[in-house]
């Protein structure tokens, strides 16, 4: 049976950025991190450990292509190519399928390292809200993973779940957060944990004529609750930060903070020099990968793969 709409409300804005102040040709060590997630892919290029360029795009069914796409978007017109990169690390769901990578590291280690760089060494708990996996990570002042936990079996409360939801109520995914607060009073959360059943529950609510905003609130609340359960198992310590797509959804984040009684750190670069740079929580993984690469090359642990 044909769906009534083909418009893709889940489609979140993709992004790319190149540093105005760095000339990569002058750099000595150029490293790349490519994060191929189940839903989104990112590439980050560092020049001597400084943020040079990044991109954030949607993953297709073919990981190698997604990786290439992410990197080419990131470097854009700069003339920089894979051949100029000393070392490239692949991470994320499709890490084994990143053609240009010399090695892989899991997104858990990378997100912890990336968050440490983005938010600063005080970060102790990182919550990475991925497409299908939620990862709660405790780390030290270097961004070293101390322990971590992942959601099991059921994908309720993942980015994918939020996309399915956005499509269902026909509201662009980035509008859900703000609109979820435009309610008279906080409604009870969606009870169903299964993405598919949550779907039928939502349909039921829409049918009953429950205002869309209330339903968004109910869904965000449910998602926040699921994440809270995971975090409680691990134990949350400040500074607490959220990386990944859902971090951009205030509707979930604010409710999560309320449930935990813990605030998430402000989304600003720890490095004051970066103040003007865009702050994209989704690049943490790729950034962490690129940072590990810098360390390895500079400490001579690996030899440069640079071709030109």
């Amino acid at each position: 049976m044909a769906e009534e709409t083909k418009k893709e409300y889940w489609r979140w804005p993709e992004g790319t950025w190149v540093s105005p102040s760095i000339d990569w040709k002058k750099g000595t060590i150029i490293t790349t991190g490519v994060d191929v997630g189940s839903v989104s892919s990112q590439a980050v290029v560092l020049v001597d450990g400084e943020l040079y360029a990044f991109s954030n795009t949607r993953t297709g069914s073919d990981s190698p292509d997604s990786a290439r796409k992410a990197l080419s978007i990131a470097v854009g017109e700069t003339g920089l190519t894979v051949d100029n990169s000393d070392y490239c690390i692949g991470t994320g769901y499709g890490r084994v399928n990143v053609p240009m990578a010399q090695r892989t590291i899991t997104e858990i280690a990378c997100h912890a390292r990336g968050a440490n760089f983005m938010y600063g060494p005080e970060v102790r708990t990182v919550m990475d809200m991925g497409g299908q996996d939620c990862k709660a990570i405790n780390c030290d002042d270097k961004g070293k993973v101390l322990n971590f936990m992942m959601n099991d079996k059921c994908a309720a409360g993942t980015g994918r779940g939020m996309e399915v939801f956005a499509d269902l109520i026909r509201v662009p995914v980035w509008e859900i957060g703000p609109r979820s607060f435009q309610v008279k009073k906080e409604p009870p959360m969606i009870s169903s944990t299964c993405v598919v059943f949550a779907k039928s529950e939502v349909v039921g609510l829409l049918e009953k004529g429950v205002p869309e905003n209330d339903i968004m609130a109910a869904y965000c609340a449910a998602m926040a609750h699921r994440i809270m359960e995971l975090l409680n198992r691990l134990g949350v310590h400040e500074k607490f930060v959220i990386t990944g797509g859902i971090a951009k959804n205030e509707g979930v984040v604010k409710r999560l903070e309320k449930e935990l009684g813990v605030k998430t750190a402000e989304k600003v670069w720890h490095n004051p020099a970066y103040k003007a740079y865009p702050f994209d929580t989704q690049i943490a993984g790729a950034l962490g990968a690129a940072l590990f690469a810098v360390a390895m090359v500079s400490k001579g642990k690996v030899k440069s793969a640079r071709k030109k």
Partner: protein
Amino acid sequence: MAKYKTKGLDCWKRAKELRNRYYKDYKESPSRGGLRWEGGAWSFDAIPQALEGEVHGLSEEPYGASIAHNPELQVRYQEAAEGKWGCARDLCSYMRAYWGSVALNEYAYGGPWPHADFIFQNQICCCHSKWLQVADEIDGGTTPYFCFDVGVGPYDKIGDRQIEYVVAQLYDGIAFIERVTGRKIIEEKLIQNVYNTYRSNCYWAKTCELNQAIPAPLDEKTMFSLYVLGSLEKSNQAIADFYEKELYPEVKDRVANKIAAVADERCRVLGDSQPPWGFLRIYRYLEQYGIVSVANLYTFSLIGWMKVDEKGHLVPYPTLEEQGITIKDRDHALRLLVEGELKGKLMWAPFYGANYKNDLVTKIAKQWRCDAAIIHLNRGCEGTAQHQMQLKIALQEMGVPVMTFEGNMADEREFDEGRVLRLIELFVTETLGLKKVA
């Protein structure tokens, strides 16, 4: 015009009062110089309750169930057990609720978690020995712990060897209790407690037997609130008196005067395992169709002692008076206590094989004249859920229509009320062909 006359139970108030006093006493015991112990519905309270001076116990399963009756507490406690302590979500839901209560340092009846002076527990299913082992660990791991084993075989295989094994452990248990409390177990008290235990368990069984009558004097929903006293403290004088002198005579009188639990009884169903406590309204829904739930191995024999007589019928286990036995001394008391529990608590039999569950429950279906069975596949208690699917097959083979629904006695996150009501409606209207009572 209703088919039968109905009437609330006169002894209802008394039952409620006894129950509330139990939880209150446990909380206040220390303020009166009394002791406190933790155990289970099956852990032979006759023994610790024989300590000199004031002493009160907390029975883990009923405590878990009372948490289940309160949705807010239930979810908060479950999540505390899973979050703060980190246990799996699929464990016994009473146990998780109990652990959560400890982890949050919260007593469901008000105030902080009341620490016990000692633990006196028994092991029959996988969880019993672990329950308080972990609860105490969450609580700091300072409470003296004793757990004895009653998993010695089904009622029809109980001989001296089995009784001896349990009695020997109980002697150790008495020594343990006396050592950790510095108080003595008083022989007279112990003997009295054993008489009471027999009275509570046997008279509850006799009361259940009365439910074979048409119309049924009691529905399961009511029975739940009545057997609970025995699961709290069957050795208690007042509780034994309640069963023998108040409940039993009143139900007898209801049978004599054809006072029904459900005015339009026209279909008698058999239940199995604990119900989802937060959703007892299911029974109200059934009443609209003139359906009354009259029997359940769990409801009968969680405390009720029964036996299979020479004709192969289920009958109440005889009281000591009926057996013409006078307890001579401590040893005699312990042996009689163990014998009664091992031979009379038929609910333990299914732990030793599906054939036991099928045999006992099909007997119940016949003797209590059940037209259908509604089986709650209870994800919250593997003990009572043992062999439920085998039972379904056995009942269907004897021509009893059966429906099953998955749920959880004490974790509403695992119970989908709308869906279950849809299934029940389908079963009642299609399979049983019943219509709502006009």
